[in-house]
C-alpha cells in the first residue's frame, strides 16, 4: 500500500476521495456532538448529565482534529463549523457532509428516554469504534495518526454505554432490564448498517473498491461487521442483556462515513498571494 505523509503531493483522485471521507468524519463528529447534547434532556441524574456533557466535548474535539488536517490540505474548514453552529438541526448539504443518521430528523425518533441514550452508546458506538479503527492504518499517515488518538477516546464512549446501561438497571430493576432488552433491536439495525453495503454482490457499494485500492479503507464491510458483532455481544452480556439474532441492517440511516456513493469536493481555499 502506497502511503502519503504531511506535505507529500497527493494524486488528484486520491485527494478527492480522502477529503470526502475526512469531511464526513469531521462534520459528523461535530454534528454527532450536537445530537448527543440534545440527549442531555433525558439525563435522569447529575452524574449522567455530566458524563454525557463530557461526551459532547469529546465529539467536538474529534471534529477539530480532523478539520485541522483538512485545513492543512487547503480546505476552508471554518465555513463548515460556522454552518453547523448556525443550522444545527438542518445544515446545508452543500456546505457540510453530515451523515444521514446524525441529521436531527433521523436521529431524534430513536430517542424517548435515557435508556435509549445508554443503549445507543452500548449498541451503536461499537460500530463506530470498529469502523473508525480502520483509519488508524490508512494510507494517509497524518489522518491515521489522528485516528489513533480518536480511537483511544472512542473506547471511553464504549465504557459510558455500559456504565449508563448498568445504572439504568440499578435504578429501575428488572422491569427496566426488560424495557431495555426490547429496545436493543432498533439500535442493532443501525449498528449493522454502519459499514455500508457488502463489498461484493449485486448490492455492493460502487465506491468501496476505490477506497480499498487507495488504502483509505483497509477493511471490508463484512470484516467490520464481524468485529462489531463480537464487541456488541460482549458489551450486552456485561450489561446483562441478550444480543438478538437475525436483525436486518438499516443501510439507509447511513451512520457510516461512506454515506453513499456520491463524492463531494470540499471547497479548497485559494492559495495565499
Amino acid at each position, binding site marked *: 500500500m502506497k502511503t502519503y505523509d504531511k506535505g507529500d503531493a497527493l494524486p488528484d483522485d486520491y485527494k478527492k476521495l480522502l477529503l470526502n471521507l475526512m469531511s464526513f468524519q469531521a462534520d459528523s463528529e461535530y454534528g454527532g456532538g450536537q445530537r448527543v447534547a440534545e440527549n442531555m434532556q433525558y439525563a435522569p441524574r447529575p*452524574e449522567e*448529565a455530566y*458524563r454525557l456533557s*463530557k461526551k459532547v*466535548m469529546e465529539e467536538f474535539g474529534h471534529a*477539530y482534529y480532523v478539520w485541522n488536517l483538512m485545513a492543512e490540505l487547503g480546505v476552508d474548514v471554518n465555513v463548515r463549523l460556522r454552518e453547523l453552529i448556525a443550522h*444545527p438541526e438542518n445544515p446545508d448539504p452543500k456546505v457540510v457532509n453530515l451523515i444521514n443518521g446524525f441529521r436531527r430528523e433521523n436521529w431524534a425518533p430513536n430517542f424517548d428516554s435515557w435508556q435509549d441514550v445508554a443503549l445507543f452508546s452500548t449498541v451503536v458506538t461499537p460500530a463506530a469504534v470498529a469502523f473508525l479503527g480502520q483509519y488508524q492504518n490508512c494510507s494517509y499517515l497524518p489522518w491515521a495518526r489522528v485516528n489513533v488518538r480518536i480511537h483511544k477516546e472512542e473506547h471511553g464512549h464504549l465504557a459510558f454505554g455500559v456504565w449508563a446501561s448498568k445504572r439504568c438497571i*440499578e435504578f429501575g430493576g428488572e422491569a427496566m432490564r426488560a424495557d431495555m432488552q426490547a429496545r436493543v433491536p432498533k439500535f442493532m439495525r443501525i449498528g449493522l448498517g454502519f459499514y455500508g453495503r457488502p463489498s461484493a454482490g449485486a448490492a455492493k457499494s460502487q465506491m468501496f473498491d476505490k477506497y480499498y485500492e487507495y488504502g483509505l479503507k483497509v477493511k471490508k464491510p463484512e470484516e467490520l461487521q464481524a468485529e462489531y458483532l463480537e464487541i456488541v455481544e460482549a458489551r450486552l452480556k456485561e450489561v446483562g442483556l441478550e444480543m438478538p439474532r437475525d436483525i436486518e441492517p438499516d443501510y439507509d440511516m447511513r451512520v457510516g462515513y461512506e454515506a453513499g456513493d456520491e463524492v463531494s469536493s470540499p471547497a479548497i481555499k485559494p492559495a495565499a498571494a
Partner: protein
Amino acid sequence: MAARFPDPLVEQRHAVLARYGAEPATLPAGEADEARWTELWRLLKPDFATADRTQVPDFASLAPAAREAARAYIGCRIEADRLLARCKEAHSRLARDGIATDAVEHYATVRDAYEDGVMAFGAARERLDTLLPKTK
C-alpha cells in the same frame, strides 16, 4: 459573565446541569454554611436513590463520615463546572478565531481536564455511596 457555548443549541441543552446547582460555581464558605451545603445536597442526592435505597437522607441526617464524603462529592461537581467553563471558552475561541493547531491542542488539554473532573465526580459518588444506608 459566565462562559457560554458558541452553539445556542448546545448551550440550551447544557441548561440541564443547572438542575444540579451548576453555576455560580462556588463552594460554600466553610463547613458552617449549613444552609448552602443542604441546598446543594438536595439537588444532587437523586444520584443515590437506587432501587435498594428509595430514601436518601437529608444533609442534616447524614452520619459524620457520609457528610464529609458528601462535601467532597459536591466539591467535585463544582470543580467540574469550572473545568466545563474553560472548555466553553476554548470552544468559543475556535469558533471566533478559526481552527488552528494551537487552538485545537488547547481545546484538547482543557477537554481532558474536564473529562478528569467528571470522572473524579463519579469516583466521589462511588465513595459516598458506600457510606449511605440501604433502605431495602
